């Protein structure tokens, strides 16, 4: 960078600090669980020490999806429910980038639910964090797909009828190759999950129970020891993370369930497979220039 710069540098090339990662002050309500999700992200990035210009922070729409504005990396605030295909394009277009996607339960499980299934089976190389608060925060307390039955929202004032999505089951069945669950009050655990997800070669997804203090207060106390709950970790000496049946069994456990890595497997990523295809095809066509290749097609149409 320019040493003659008059104002103090915000970030210095090759040096990644928490300070250099901060951007706009978050606009969330005081006490919102999302602050901690952000803090853990800063710390994880600092620890991973990636080239700052190669980190990309993307999101859909929702309170949680405001995330990119609060992080000083290349960032994109896309449209509601479509952050995954957007991020998949970024990832597949550029092997040198580290792509992180943030969003809410409505964004991920409702309007974007179909994309989750396909990003999972295609195994794009990226990390997706669902900040699950069991409610629509930004639009002020409507039912979300993860709202429990009986939850009183503005669209179900008498209590929700519909059975909620089981987030872990949905993520597991999507074909995601890394699936973990954590709680926004557990910074160290969040960081551990982030780090493992970031290092996973494939589509990694983390559900973070992140409380909406405004519209769903106390929803996750059962998983918070400081509120009298239990934060029970998965014992990975007993749970084989590559065992899908065991992971699905964990997903069926009674509320608040267990936290940690439910499932991890190594499958070829879409990024790898497409790259291999390109290399094999380029070799087959004798590494001709683009112009020669196109001229060849025209010649075949004479």
């Amino acid at each position, binding site marked *: *960078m*320019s040493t003659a*710069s008059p*104002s103090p*540098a*915000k*970030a*210095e*090339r090759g040096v990644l600090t928490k300070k250099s990662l901060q*951007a*706009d002050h978050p606009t969330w309500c005081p006490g919102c669980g999302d602050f901690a999700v952000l803090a853990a992200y800063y710390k994880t990035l600092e620890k991973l020490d990636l080239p*700052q*210009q*190669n*980190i*990309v922070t993307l999101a859909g729409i929702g309170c949680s999806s405001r995330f*990119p*504005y609060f992080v*000083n*990396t*290349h*960032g*994109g*605030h*896309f*449209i509601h*429910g*479509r952050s*995954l*295909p*957007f991020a*998949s*394009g*970024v*990832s*597949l*277009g*550029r092997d*040198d*980038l580290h792509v992180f996607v943030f969003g809410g339960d409505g964004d991920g499980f409702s309007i974007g639910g*179909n*994309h989750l*299934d*396909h990003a999972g089976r295609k195994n794009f190389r990226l990390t997706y964090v669902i900040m699950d608060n069991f409610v629509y925060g930004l639009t002020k307390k409507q039912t979300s797909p993860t709202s429990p039955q009986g939850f009183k929202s503005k669209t179900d004032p008498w209590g929700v009828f519909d059975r909620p999505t089981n987030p872990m089951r949905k993520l597991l069945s999507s074909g995601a190759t890394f699936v973990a669950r954590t709680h926004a009050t557990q910074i160290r655990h969040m960081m551990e999950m982030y780090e493992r997800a970031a290092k996973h070669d494939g589509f990694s997804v983390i559900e973070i129970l992140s409380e909406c203090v405004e519209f769903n207060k106390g929803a996750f106390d059962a998983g918070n020891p400081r509120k009298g709950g239990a934060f029970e970790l998965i014992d990975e000496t007993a749970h084989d993370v590559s065992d899908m049946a065991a992971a699905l069994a964990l997903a069926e456990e009674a509320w608040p369930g267990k936290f940690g890595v439910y499932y991890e497997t190594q499958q070829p990523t879409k990024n790898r497979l*497409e790259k291999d*295809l*390109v290399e094999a*095809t*380029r070799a087959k*066509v004798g590494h001709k220039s*683009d*112009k020669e*290749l*196109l*001229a060849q*097609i*025209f010649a*075949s*149409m*004479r």
Partner: protein
Amino acid sequence: MPHNSANPIPAREELIRDAVIRLAGNSQDGIQSIGGFLARLAGRNAQEVMTYMTIPATISGGPSIFQVRMGTGEVLSAGDEADFLLAFYQHSYEDHIGFLKEGGVLLYDSDHVEPDAQDTRFVKVGVPISALTVEALGGSSREKGKNLFALGLLSRIFKLDVVKLRAIFEERFGGKAEDVLRNVNLAFDAGFSYPIDNVLDRYFAFHSEEGQEGAAQVTMDGNTALTLGLIAGGVRHGAGYPITPWSTIMEMLRQQLPKYGGVFVQSEDELAAVSMAIGFSYAGRLAVTGSSGPGISLKMEALGWATMAEIPLVVINIQRGGPSTGLPTNVEQSDLLQAIYGSHGDCPRVVLAAENVEDCFYIAREACQIARKYSVPVFVLSDMSLASRIEAFDEPDLEALMIEPTLDTEDRPEEFKPYDLSRVTRHAPPGTWIEGGVFPQVTGLEHDESGHPSANPQMHEKMMKKRRAKIQQIAEDLPPSQIFGDSEGEVLVVGWGSTWGPIRETVIRERDRGRKIGHLQIRFINPLPNDLGEIFNRYESILVVEMNDEGLYGYGQLATLLRARYCNPAIRSLTKTDGLTFKIKEIMLGIDAVSPIQATTR
């Protein structure tokens, strides 16, 4: 066509300039491939050629036609009437005999067709095509090969260049099992050697134009040309979801792009397709998405984001009949206003329309240039008729036209702002180092110059102007509009997209009968060229011809737009939605309606 030439010519041979040949059968008979061979042959003989086909909407086959118009003059439309009809079945005969002109030749498979004996308007030639094909191929192939037998007959009747045809077979079938090519030749030879002289008393031969051997001609359909234009324009990435008639573009891109180091993704739906394409573009890889009808509707929200976030993107719409699932295999131009205005909010973007198969190549390439230069989504409108129609055109000069894609992650200076109000946005993809280390945000929320949300009303107005002004800038940079025919006079016929050919042919005919008429085809629809108002003032009437509905107020979509912009009451509208391309006759009637001939020609 068949007209008696004044020149002394060998007996029983008529010299012709052009011929419209309609082949009617079922889709499984391979008539498309006869048409394809004829078109390619015409292209190699430096003849003009244009094809037209219908494909049944059902998968299991059904009536289908392929029409080829080839000749030595300029071929501008697929022809209002056929000179020559080849009917494989009774239904083919019955459905299409009305299209054969009086004195035209009806060639039919006498194993399946019994023409009306009373009808003496045509030269009727019956050949037992089915039986002879089975005989030629040894009987095992259940009438397969009829198409090649018929092509053999046509080659004889039209004195086609058999050596060149065989070379085309060789290219097409040479890679397959040996007996495939052998059977092709067997069936072809059987047709070619059929003693047609016993039933038809003349041959036809195309005028050979001397010195016509200019640039090599290539022969392809519009979707292929468009795909190649994208590649020439530097597109290496994209995403789509299958739908007729867009699918062949995505199939070809999927198969071709890996050769060029790129990737095309078949995504789970059109919402994902457009989002993924935008993701590629944001990452610095100019990308394409596309669709037809319903799929375009699904993309609209994300396209609005691309305008707001100022991300380059190419969007292809191969229009078909709407609304809703509509007429999936028919032509219509009813998505024009959607392309311009279809996303919510004031959402300026560029809209271009290809006028013929050749232009599909050039316009796709141009769309890539504009998208990059102005960091904006660019719509390319084509349609069902261009998608599948085959034309021959001069091989493009790739030395001059090829644009190699580059990834622009050069360091940006400290004062870099993603939405700098003082210049056209030049987006910085991730991976770009920003001096001073403040990284840009791209967003669909209204924002300040750094990309951070701003609900400030003045900022909203400034950003709105920024997004609008760069599109207006494109209009400033456009070349002057090209008028064909009279540059002032009675009527200016205005069209957009695939109506180019029929309008041009109509205008030629009208001028031949002494009328003062011009033709203007608008390729840039948003923004419109700046010189139209002055041009319109030079004519008594402006007739806008388009394949869409007259709407609630009596004007087609482009006519509505032009009337709104120019407030010129001389702008009139000719529309239709019968799912077919315009006939010359129909446009002539439209011209007569706005400008009756007796009133103007003294």
